[in-house]
């Protein structure tokens, strides 16, 4: 060992900071219903908002101070951690950088009309035709065709069926199950029945044959009480309405990789984990909202957006956040710089300290779960409250060292 090496000072672990910065600005990606709602709420809490929208327009801000709208823009990079994210945004061919305390992802969902249903129109088209005052004698709604129709679409269908029945159109409503798991839906279902909407339980794809100015629909009625000899129904309808099928956006995998968060098995944001129910993700300060988590109704979307905005406001506090959670600490003297912690950390809290050639755990991102502590091959990471000694103290006192 040379004298120079011997003189090298002992590298001390970084002390856990008492407070971490909390930039009073939030990045919202996606300016739809959920992104717009969250943005307006955040502005109301006195936070600044940077809204990144893929398209040309977005929900208006009503000229509030602290709001920045970037249209025809997309997020291309995100560095840093909670309270101090550095976002790289491409807006109208230019690159801009913004420092934000939290990130809300509220991008949309891809829809396609249900395939291979002859003469079918979508719910949106049906609404247009009703609004135009076109007389429709009879209509058949076909729910749960390829996939179980999401509640959001189902409730829309129910609403339109009710409105059509009120206008003296005869309405058939075919579905596997009537979904009423939202406020007001049960009432709507009953009102629709009272107005004369005929609900038919159906599990198989009905046979549809085009007639001169309508379609004939052959269907097995599986409703209880429909005797076996009566169960084959033949309906005639001028218009067949099908819900759109929902698919996660093709942008999701790229965006998830950029944000260092996970997608579920279908490709929507956020895996099915009860702990992440309210829009939380694996990372502190990163939230996902709206249809990119799977199709949801407008009411549910708004409720979630408002709840998340409140959570962000309380997280960001007043410019600083007290570190009141346990934090793992790396001893650079022991660290072999293998970055096992970086790979294993579910919260993306482990990074590299290039100067020290050591791993480092960011207090702002760490949840103190201890996964890295258990996994570190060099035993270089510790958590004060849950040290190795503390874990075995209750039973190892009797002779075992």
């Amino acid at each position, binding site marked *: 060992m040379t004298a120079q090496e011997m003189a090298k000072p002992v590298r001390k672990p970084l002390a856990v900071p008492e407070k971490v910065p909390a930039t009073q600005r939030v990045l919202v990606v996606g300016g739809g219903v959920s992104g717009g709602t969250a943005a307006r709420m955040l502005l109301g809490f006195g936070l600044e908002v940077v809204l990144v929208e893929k398209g040309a327009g977005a929900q208006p801000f009503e000229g509030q101070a602290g709001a920045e709208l970037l249209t025809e823009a997309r997020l291309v990079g995100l560095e840093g951690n909670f309270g101090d994210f550095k976002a790289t945004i491409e807006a109208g061919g230019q690159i801009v950088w913004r420092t934000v305390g939290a990130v809300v992802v509220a991008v949309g969902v891809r829809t396609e009309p249900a395939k291979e249903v002859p003469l079918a129109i979508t719910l949106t088209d049906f609404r247009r035709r009703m609004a135009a005052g076109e007389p429709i004698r009879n209509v058949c709604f076909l729910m749960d065709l390829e996939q179980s129709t999401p509640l959001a679409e189902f409730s829309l269908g129910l609403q339109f069926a009710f409105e059509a029945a009120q206008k003296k159109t005869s309405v058939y409503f075919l579905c596997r199950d009537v979904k009423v798991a939202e406020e007001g839906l049960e009432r709507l279902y009953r009102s629709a029945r009272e107005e004369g909407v005929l609900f038919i339980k159906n599990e198989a794809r009905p046979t549809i044959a085009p007639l001169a100015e309508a379609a004939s629909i052959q269907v097995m009625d599986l409703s209880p009480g429909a005797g076996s000899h009566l169960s084959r129904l033949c309906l005639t309808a001028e218009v067949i309405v099908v819900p759109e099928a929902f698919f996660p956006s093709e942008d999701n995998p790229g965006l998830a990789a950029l944000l260092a968060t996970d997608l579920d098995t279908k490709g929507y944001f956020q*895996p099915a984990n009860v702990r992440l129910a309210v829009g939380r993700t694996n990372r502190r300060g990163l939230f996902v909202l709206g249809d990119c988590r799977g199709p949801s109704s407008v009411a549910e979307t708004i409720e979630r957006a408002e709840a998340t905005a409140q959570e962000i406001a309380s997280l960001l506090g007043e410019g600083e956040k007290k570190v009141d959670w346990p934090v793992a600490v790396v001893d650079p003297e022991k660290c072999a710089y293998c970055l096992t912690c970086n790979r294993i950390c579910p919260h993306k809290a482990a990074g590299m300290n290039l100067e020290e050639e050591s791993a480092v755990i960011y207090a702002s991102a760490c*949840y103190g779960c201890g996964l890295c502590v258990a996994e570190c091959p060099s035993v270089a990471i510790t958590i004060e409250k849950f040290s*190795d000694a503390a*874990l*075995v103290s209750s039973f*190892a006192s009797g002779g075992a060292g």
Partner: protein
Amino acid sequence: MNGKLVAFCCERSGMVAWQEAQANGGLPAELEVVAVPCAGRIGMVHLLKAFEGGAAGVMVFACIKDSCDSLRGNLHAEKRCESTRAILRSVGMEPERLEFCSIAPPMGAEFSEVVRTMMEKVSSEEREG
């Protein structure tokens, strides 16, 4: 061996279930509970130390699959329990003395049941051995 049982409990699930079980009564006096922030914090060394310290049976209580706050902490814990069982086997101990259990916070009755089963298991093995 001193006939003790050690239960490593995730603070978010196992500890709550333990409190529930304790409130209902009937947990053996031999049970020692160690709180961990996440079951993923538990290393093989802690499990082996427990046996070294004289435990007759060791249990790990982790969150149920897909409801781990650290997303994969419970899976890491399960993997480490399996590896530790292999070590127990290689040194001639019954691997059944180490139990991994997925539990939700309100499952106090199930917590008691796991402890009771372990108690029976280790005492029958003691008789046979």
